[in-house]
């Protein structure tokens, strides 16, 4: 009962389960500005969807969720289009470069080892830093923090100001070099390509800590950027690999577009530090899950190739 057949995945799924899954991931997307592929793809694989189809169909779904989320955040004045476009250009350049790096790593062998270790260290580091920082903010000790790190910040600020092509980003309320979003976008693009994820997890902290954008604008701008990345991925996967299951994406979409709207509404009610600490907890949770997967012997010693 309530099952639907997925012609490309070659399996059937429970409609309500997929709808709920889409809703949950859309909710996270609306609150935190992340695509949610890190969570969705493994869950879909768990429900019997082939890895390659799970990753590609999820990209299609993210297009809908991020459109819904971007629209909601845009209404709240939370999308910095100028910044988003620059990050996107950087991301595309970085992504293309990252694909080449991964080819070299694979040729050298042990690529998976390097990728997983980088992932765990990255998630652990970013998550812990964000968690501690937002905790301090919530405890009202942000003043003490800025005093403590004041020297470092000013050096970084000086360096930012010394860069050419300084420009004003109205929505974010900052003035920085045009080169910065391009460079950081490329950096996230490289990592995203290597790790095989959308990059929202790294992009959000980069915008908060390195570009110093306000948290609410970060979420809206991140969603705007993710939208374009996933449009590209969906079309490429459908064209080259025939791995986009539109029926699956549609079921996920129904849930995620609603979830993204509710998520945005929750985001609006939360303070910047509250969003940060929740996101940090989520990042750390994913990090722990990955570590668990690395330390506990797998039930089956082989897996089908593809996916994340």
């Amino acid at each position, binding site marked *: 009962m309530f*099952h639907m*057949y997925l012609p490309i995945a070659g399996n*059937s799924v429970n409609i309500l389960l997929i709808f709920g899954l889409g809703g949950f991931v859309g909710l996270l997307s609306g609150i935190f500005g992340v695509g949610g592929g890190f969570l969705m793809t493994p869950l879909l694989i768990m429900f019997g969807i082939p890895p390659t189809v799970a990753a590609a169909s999820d990209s299609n779904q993210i*297009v809908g969720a991020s459109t819904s989320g971007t629209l*909601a955040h845009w209404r709240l004045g939370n999308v910095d289009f100028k910044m988003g476009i620059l990050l996107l250009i950087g991301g595309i350049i970085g992504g293309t470069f990252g694909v080449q790096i991964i080819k070299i790593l694979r040729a050298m062998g042990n690529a998976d080892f390097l990728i997983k270790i980088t992932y765990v260290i990255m998630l652990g580091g970013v998550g812990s830093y964000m968690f501690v920082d937002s905790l301090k903010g919530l405890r009202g000790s942000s003043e003490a923090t800025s005093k403590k790190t004041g020297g470092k910040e000013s050096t970084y600020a000086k360096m930012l100001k010394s860069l050419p092509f300084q420009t004003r980003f109205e929505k974010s309320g900052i003035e920085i070099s045009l080169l910065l979003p391009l460079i950081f976008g490329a950096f996230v693009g490289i990592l995203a390509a290597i790790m095989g994820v959308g990059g929202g997890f790294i992009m959000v902290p980069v915008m908060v800590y390195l570009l110093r954008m306000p948290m609410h604008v970060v979420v809206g701008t991140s969603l705007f950027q993710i939208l374009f990345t996933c449009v590209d991925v969906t079309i490429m996967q*459908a064209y080259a690999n025939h791995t986009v299951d*539109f029926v699956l994406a549609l079921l996920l979409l129904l849930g995620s577009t609603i979830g993204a*709207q509710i998520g945005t509404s929750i985001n609006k009610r939360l303070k910047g530090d509250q969003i940060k600490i929740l996101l940090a907890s989520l990042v750390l949770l994913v990090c722990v899950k990955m570590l668990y997967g690395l*330390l506990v012997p797998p039930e089956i010693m082989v897996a*089908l190739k593809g996916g994340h």
Partner: protein
Amino acid sequence: MKVSSKCIKKHFVFLVFLSLSVFLISNWAFASQENLKLELNPSHINIGTFYNGTKVIAKGKIPAGTEVVLRISGHYTELHLKKKGKIAGLLWMNIGDVTVGNVPEVFMVVCSQNMKDRIDDPELNLGYKYLEKMMTIEPEGEDKGFIFKEFVKLQEKSGTYGIFSGNVKYTGESDGLKTFEATIPVPPKMKQGEYKVEAFAVRGKEIIKSSAQELNLKQVGFPALVSKLAFGYSLIYGIGAVIIAIFAGLLMGLLFKGGGSH
């Protein structure tokens, strides 16, 4: 003269007995050859929008004193696998790629409880051992037995491989023939295409007779349309999927406009 008539009578009785025996034996053998019938119901399955797998009933007759074993297989292919192992004595991750060839995407054996432990007997060779022998592996230095065992575990978890004992019942016996009825599970993961259903009549360690039928699965309606577009018009399909997703996102955004965003 008397003796010779007695002798003729004796020979006559013997000849009648012999003829009768030959007739009965040949008739029995003929019956067993002819009557290993296998019928599948249904033999064609339509995969529609709300399809979630189904069951096929296999009916037939086997010689008395034999057991039936059914084997369902199809879509022989090559599969690329990631092999997991320990790195630095601590971390479990992918340590290499293995390609297994000449393996079916679907492999199921349906038999009675009695036959469960006998299907892999070297003389019968009806179970997984049959597959293992046929499977090719690359690189060649890999431990074939280990990879095969783990591969079977993986396929069983996905529902496309399995040994289903107890799915056979015998409903009657007449004229030296036994009627069987078996339930073949058709998991939703069985893709469209043709599959071979074989029936074997087994006595002791010998296959007395075998027969085969085709099971056909076909996508119809909406799934068929989506598949046609995805494989035949992939670029239009990809762009269409994106446009519909954007439209769904915008629509949901408009529906929620008054719902508290402002």
